[in-house]
């Protein structure tokens, strides 16, 4: 059945590719030289677009007609007036405009009159329309098939704020915004290096959304970069409104619960990942940047780990792993132990549980399902609900479901505790938050069927599944499996920064020759000798003073 689907899929892909090729090399369209023809054409394109503006001005003694086209509210009026209109309409400036040669006029306008940071020439009409839609102003010159594109974008946008999804106690508080340019600048400000490459692409046939590939040349794997470019170039989609669209189009395995592409709202996290040799994809219109390849390990890492002391952050990492297991297994374990392995529990503990379960009409399995479902509903309601009504959720959740169901004897106390601990543990791992409930459910069912053994069967199956996953060619569980001891320095323990000699082996590209990864040992030894020299100097100074 699946092979049939696969064949169909392939057929669709081929068809869409053929269509694309049919549509592709878009024919160039010349910009009409006469004003009336141009106006007619623009009017055709922008028919019924009431936010489209065409400003006609007459410049210089020779009375050249210039048509400035732009979309209202996408440009900054202030800059438009000061930097575009003012110099063009100033008779002192335009007096020296060369007489007849159009090329000279364009050069003169560019070089002497327009005081703008970015200005470029455009010869294709369709492209110029695209420029207008991007928020640039296009200056059409009468009698010339070349237009000038002036970038005076300016629209209402959110300022850089602290992101709500990834809060930190220590660390930078700025977050990405919805504007691509600002986001790229935020990354560039972290990594001041010409090797940080930023490649712009346009995706989405209807929306024409800009995206930007950011990577550090020389550190990111060349093959990885090519793979990302290849996958992005194959995207054939109408609209990209959020980076989630891209994520779904380029990920390795669409039929898995595990996140295979990372996303982050914080420039420092993205910069850190780029420095480790990953490729970031910043998408216009969303504060969430994607990073590939994404390893399972990253769900346990937090940006703060690198800003606080290594010992504390190592302990926190282990805590996160423990909470992962709690949120995955605890309800299942509860069911398994109560159903099958009562003897394995210490007697007093068992008695306490039995006492609180007395009179509860449902089996542990039903209880676990009921409480899990309730919690998921509460959580989803809490997210979707308008802020002012949020209070109601906590009252309903805490009082009605927690307290009342226990008092009514429908749910036992231990089950409420189990659900609460599970829920809280889930929030420690934001990237996995959305998939954990399903696995929890699987484990509860397996625990009810085969007890602990069923759970271990499930665990083995899930781990095998994870081992089979790859994110852009990198095994998902690197560096645990396949294990690479050198990369263990940043896994469950975060080694101090001065002990991290090598970059992650699975990600980085060799700099020269055969070396698969670069050891920065040499430089660290140099630092050491510097230290020794300094010590020597200090000693000498002290001796001199004594003498």
């Amino acid at each position: 059945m699946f092979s049939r689907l696969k064949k169909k899929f392939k057929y669709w892909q081929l068809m869409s590719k053929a269509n694309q090729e049919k549509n592709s090399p878009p024919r160039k369209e010349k910009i009409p030289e006469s004003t009336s023809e141009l106006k007619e054409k623009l009017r055709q394109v922008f028919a019924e677009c009431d936010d489209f503006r065409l400003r006609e001005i007459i410049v210089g003694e020779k009375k050249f007609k210039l048509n400035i086209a732009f979309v209202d509210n996408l440009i900054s009026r202030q800059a438009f007036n000061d930097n575009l209109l003012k110099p063009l309409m100033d008779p002192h400036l335009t007096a020296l405009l060369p007489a007849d040669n159009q090329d000279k006029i364009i050069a003169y306008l560019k070089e002497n009159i327009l005081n703008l940071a970015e200005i470029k020439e455009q010869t294709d009409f369709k492209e110029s329309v695209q420029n207008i839609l991007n928020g640039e102003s296009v200056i059409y010159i009468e009698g010339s098939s070349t237009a000038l594109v002036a970038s005076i974008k300016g629209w209402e946008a959110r300022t850089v704020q602290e992101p709500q999804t990834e809060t930190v106690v220590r660390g930078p508080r700025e977050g990405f915004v919805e504007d691509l340019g600002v986001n790229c600048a935020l990354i560039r400000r972290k990594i001041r290096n010409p090797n940080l490459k930023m490649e712009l692409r346009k995706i989405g046939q209807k929306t024409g959304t800009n995206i930007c590939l950011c990577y550090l040349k020389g550190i990111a794997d060349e093959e990885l970069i090519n793979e990302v470019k290849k996958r992005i170039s194959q995207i054939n989609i109408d609209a990209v409104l959020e980076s989630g669209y891209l994520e779904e189009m380029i990920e390795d395995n669409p039929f898995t619960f595990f996140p295979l592409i990372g996303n982050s709202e914080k420039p420092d996290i993205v910069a850190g990942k780029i420095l480790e040799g990953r490729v970031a994809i910043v998408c216009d219109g969303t504060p969430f940047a994607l990073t590939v390849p994404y390893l399972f390990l990253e769900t346990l890492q937090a940006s703060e780990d690198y800003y606080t002391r290594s010992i504390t952050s190592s302990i926190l990492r282990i805590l996160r792993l423990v909470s992962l297991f709690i949120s995955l297994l605890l309800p299942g374990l509860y069911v398994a132990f109560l159903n099958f392995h009562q003897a394995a529990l210490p007697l007093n503990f068992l008695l306490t549980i039995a006492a609180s379960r007395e009179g509860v009409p449902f089996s542990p399995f039903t209880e676990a399902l009921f409480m899990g479902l309730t919690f998921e509903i509460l959580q989803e309601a809490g997210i979707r609900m308008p802020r002012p009504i949020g209070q109601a959720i906590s009252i309903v959740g805490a009082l009605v479901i927690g307290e009342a169901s226990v008092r009514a004897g429908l749910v036992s106390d231990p089950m409420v505790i189990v659900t609460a601990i599970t829920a809280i543990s889930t929030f420690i791992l934001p990237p996995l938050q959305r998939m954990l409930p399903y696995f929890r459910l699987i484990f509860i069912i397996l625990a009810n069927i085969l007890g602990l053994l069923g759970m271990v069967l499930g665990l083995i199956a899930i781990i095998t599944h994870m081992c089979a996953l790859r994110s852009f060619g990198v095994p998902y569980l690197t560096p645990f499996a396949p294990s690479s001891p050198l990369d263990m320095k940043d896994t469950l323990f975060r080694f101090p920064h001065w002990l991290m000699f090598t970059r992650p082996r699975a990600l980085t590209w060799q700099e020269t020759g055969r070396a698969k990864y670069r050891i920065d040992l040499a430089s660290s030894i140099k630092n050491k000798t510097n230290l020794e020299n300094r010590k020597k100097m200090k000693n000498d100074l002290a001796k001199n003073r004594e003498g």
Partner: protein
Amino acid sequence: MIRDTRISGYQLSLLMMSFIFGSSAIVAPAATAGQDAWLAFILGWLGGLLLMWLYVTIYLDNPSRTLIEILRICFGKYLGSVLALLYIAYFLHLASFVFRDYGEYLTLTTYTLTPIAFTIGCFALLVAYCLKKGLEVTGRAAEILIPYLFIVAIIVFLTLIPEYELKNLTPILENGFAPVADSSLRVLTFPFGETVIFLMIFPALYSARKVERIAFLSVSIMGFTLLSITVREVLSLGPDLLIRLVFPPSISTELTPKIQFDPLIAVNLLLGGWIKITVCLYAAVVGITQLLGLDDYRHFVLPAAILAVGLSLWTFNNIFELMHISQKLYYYYVIPFQVIIPVFILVITKLKKVFKAK
């Protein structure tokens, strides 16, 4: 497909160790020797190292060839194919043995009401899934899961310390050397001799030169772990109980003060048995594919798993039959596969080399 499979040395050693550990987790090896079980086990272990030397030498003489190909080279196309078929049947039979061991243990200790076919079937599904994903993926999963095996072994060994009684070791050689020798022969065939199956897996190793080191290291480490388990059982249960019990570890863990580790032992059995059956079925399906000159072994995974499950349910009527066969008859049955044919292979390859040199 088969040639593409590549596993690292660490993965191979983990596979070998958990293969040897396999169902030995629940049946204390050399239990029939009573208080001298440790001595019998050590003898068997030394024999196991010798057998390992035999297999590794065979592999190094025929580098990057599986057992099926080696058999065909040594015995010619027809006899070789017949022997290969026998080996494949043996691998499937071995898988069914482990399935039944696992099912019986669970039915006897924890899941008394669950039908044995269901527990075995669930397990078989898991194994089939792992095999479909390939040996590489299974090797990677082993990297994460198998260290747990040793942790449990250490925990159980340490928590039982209060129950140990040194007088359980005496009298040494009460009934002479015969029972010890008999028991050590059993240890030799189960679990050490079964490593003949790795002749099917050695070709998947990345760096073939490491085979020797990895094989001996894993047999030594696992031998040591199993020795600790044997000593644990003898010290905590005493010889009388040890000889009579079917699954000694499940009883000895119940002796732990205040807590019961029985589920942990079952989990250990599951982990070891998972790798053991996966390796057995992998060897069987790869053997079939090579015998038929095909390319992809994945088509045979599910049929082979179902066949092994069926065998495990049909060959034995009850647990006593299983114990009787595995204790009394098993080693007559396997010695040709584990010792005699490999020795023939070794002799033939050496002779061929000598003749070629001339």
